[in-house]
């Protein structure tokens, strides 16, 4: 069952990918291992020449490249950054990414970037604020766009909606796709005491076009979304649960800190690919 958002936009599941991180600039383009696609953080390529560009070009020759941003600031109070948007559009076109994504959050206040994915209050006011901004982004970049469900450590003041309702309202009213970060669902469910499967069930799953899997760090009173470890068993199980409802979805292993080796990340991608294949064979 391909998601209806994907079908409407002619987007096919791409398999299992990993991120082109700085540590892999030399290795990744040369790898002989299985890899279906590559994700980039566009901010690392928009204004930085030299090594990142060489690596990107080499990867784009071999694989589909998807752009997953962190600085769009789609939820923020100030106007969207014109310079950023025009550079992003050019990059997405240059690598011919079938779609691009960023997070449902804000990253900039008073014109200053804070370089973090900061949570919004789950409120109708925030929905009203974000929806036209998402539309503006899609109009500017002219490719299908996915919003990711971010992790958050505290519910922001002024929230009146359930998190899943908030996501649904934004995605449906803006008519964008969803990048479902399954680790974020798990981390949030643990940090805020809810049932992750019920949360998944409440999402507009027909809009899910991409999935993120990642590791986290368990502290005594909170789980931190660090992208610094292997994907845990509970997240793998939740991943299956999602795929059983969505059908095959392009899946990325996010590993950004304490990366043991590129092979370890590719091992995780192999595991995701095996799950995708197993469910497809059913």
């Amino acid at each position, binding site marked *: 069952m391909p998601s209806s958002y994907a079908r409407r936009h002619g987007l096919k599941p791409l398999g299992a990918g990993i991120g082109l991180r700085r540590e892999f600039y030399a290795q990744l383009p040369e790898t002989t291992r299985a890899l279906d696609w590559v994700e980039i953080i566009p*901010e*690392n390529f*928009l*204004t*930085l*020449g*030299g*090594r*990142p560009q*060489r690596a990107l070009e080499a990867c784009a020759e071999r694989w589909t490249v998807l752009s997953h941003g962190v*600085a769009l600031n789609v939820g*923020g*109070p100030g106007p969207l*950054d014109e310079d*950023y948007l025009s550079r992003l559009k050019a990059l997405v076109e240059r690598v011919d990414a079938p779609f691009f994504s960023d997070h449902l959050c*804000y990253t900039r*206040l*008073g*014109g*200053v*970037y*804070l*370089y*973090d994915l*900061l949570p919004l*209050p789950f*409120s109708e*006011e*925030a929905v*009203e*604020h974000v929806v036209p901004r998402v539309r503006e982004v899609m109009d500017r970049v002219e490719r299908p766009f996915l919003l990711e469900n971010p992790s958050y*450590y*505290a*519910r*922001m*003041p*002024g929230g009146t909606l359930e998190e899943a309702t908030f996501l649904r309202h934004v995605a449906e009213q803006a008519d964008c796709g969803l990048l479902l970060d399954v680790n974020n669902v798990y981390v949030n469910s643990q*940090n805020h005491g809810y049932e992750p499967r019920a949360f998944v069930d409440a999402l507009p799953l027909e809009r899910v076009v991409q999935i993120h899997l990642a590791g986290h760090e368990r502290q005594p*009173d*909170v789980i*931190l979304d660090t992208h610094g470890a292997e994907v845990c068993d509970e997240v793998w199980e939740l991943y299956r649960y999602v795929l059983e409802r969505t059908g095959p979805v392009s899946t990325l292993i996010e590993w950004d800190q304490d990366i043991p080796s590129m092979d370890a990340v590719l091992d995780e991608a192999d595991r995701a690919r095996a799950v995708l294949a197993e469910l497809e064979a059913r």
Partner: protein
Amino acid sequence: MKPGLRGFFDSMEEYFADPGQVDRLYAAHPGWEASRSRVAIYGRLVRHHVNATLEKLFPLTRGGVGEERWEELVRAYEALRPGTSFELNRMGEGFPGFLADEAERRGLPGYVPALARFEWTDFEVFSSMEPVPERVERLTVNPTLAVLEHPFRLCAYVRAKGKGEPAAGQEMALLWRHPETLVTMYMAASDRALLAVKMAMEGLTPEGVASATGVPEADIRAALEECVKDGLVLAPG
């Protein structure tokens, strides 16, 4: 934007300007039940991005000022709100100028602002978007070349990874990105490097330079070859 959401952003902006003032944030939102330790994670994360970026960009400068003063400098610089670009490394651009302004008042070692400028230039050259042609028709200066002048021997100091203090003495430092390895190269400008740059800029030939200076043409060619190998100048073929 509705006033409730506007108020939320305003209170968060105030909080991030001084994450110690978490009480003020809670006062702005009566009845907000989120745990303070959870909210404080955001204050720490935002601060961490500034710290980590400046530490990465200016490791020798940090060593030169010492840990305690480094922390103070980073805090004071952060208060100037340097995150004006979506690319977080850009926040380092104003740091050398900030150190120059603060040097006297804070009693920083005299070489520190120049060293910070060197480290920033290293990053700028490394990540330069200047297109470097794969082929050239004539001898060409590497378009990423940056020239710095300062009254310290910083090239030797940086090569030794910042032991002690740099020696005093006027230096013209050349920094450029090697066209193949893509790493930053740097050297105190030597006669042969300056000659190679001059030949490229003015379109001089080894024959012409030899006859004008009396230096054997073979020596000039050898000097030029070395600069081409280092990527300081780009040669045809």
